[in-house]
């Protein structure tokens, strides 16, 4: 037996989680300013990074490693998350409207109360993905696979 993942958090006074060293300096500065609008984060390692409430509108996170990332309440409108590793991510209450999640891995990701209207989930892994109270209206789910947790989920007009 061995761990599936190990993360390290430095918690500063006031309960603030410091950004890990593996995040580029330039990205760290932008995170501290609270916005990553349109940022180029392709294939970046952002595992377990605390990004709650941040604005990533239109950012390119394709192929990024976002396992265990905290993006609760974040704005990810029109984000490109194609082939991103979002396993066990916290996306509670996130705005993922019109986001591209094609072939993304959402295994056991928490999307409770997230807004995914018109998102593209084509080919995405939805095994154990928690979609409780999420809005999946008009999403594209062609070839999406796995058994997500669906409970009070809005599914009007989905394309599958």
């Amino acid at each position, binding site marked *: *037996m061995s761990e*599936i*993942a190990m993360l*390290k*958090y*430095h918690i500063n006074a006031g309960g603030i989680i410091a950004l890990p060293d593996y995040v580029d300096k330039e990205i760290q500065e932008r995170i501290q300013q609270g916005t990553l609008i349109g940022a180029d984060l392709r294939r970046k390692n952002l595992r377990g990074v605390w990004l709650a409430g941040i604005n990533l509108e239109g950012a390119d996170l394709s192929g990024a490693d976002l396992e265990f990332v905290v993006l609760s309440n974040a704005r990810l409108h029109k984000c490109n998350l194609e082939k991103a590793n979002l396993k066990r991510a916290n996306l*509670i209450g996130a705005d993922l409207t019109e986001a591209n999640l094609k072939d993304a891995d959402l295994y056991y990701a*928490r999307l409770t109360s997230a807004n995914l209207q018109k998102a593209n989930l084509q080919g995405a892994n939805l095994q154990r993905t928690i979609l409780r109270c999420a809005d999946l209206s008009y999403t594209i789910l062609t070839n999406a696979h796995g058994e997500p947790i669906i409970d009070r989920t809005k599914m009007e007009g989905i394309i599958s």
Partner: protein
Amino acid sequence: MIVYHFCTSINEANAYILIDPETKQALLIDVPEWTPMMEQVLVEQQAQLKGVFITHEHYDHISGLQKLRQRYNGLKQYPEKDFFHNTNMNKTATLKLGDYEGQIISLPGHTPESVGLYIDGIIFTGDALFAGSVGGTISSLQAKQQIEAIKTKILTLPENTLIFPGHGPITLVSTEKKYNPFLQP
């Protein structure tokens, strides 16, 4: 405070190692398994394991206890037995880790003896509260008891309190207050 988060292969249960960087004292929270990587963290950090805190005694949170005890003979376990002999529903106890003082909080519901640890602005909730969800219970009475405990003992903490649950990613009190469907009025 430094927190190492291990997502283990035992039902994906989390184990945590807390380290006070000043005194190098460490505390293990739950032990689904005891692995070489956990041992390595203590060695690399030159930290001394002071004890193990068990949030509840389900197999996926204690399976590594025997191996841990073989390695650390006489290791102290929290909460101490006396904690459970106190029948007061609002019972609490304290736990010292270096310069920090934690508060052990009773969170009955998932199991009658479930507990959490609040220390330095963060809370370890075991299987009482997860990001966007709550722990399973065996009766509606226990479910009600659990929700009551979460609402009165966790949601009353400062909004920016970090929550480290027994499974899954970390979260925040304010996020759970706003979005967790099990905690809405």
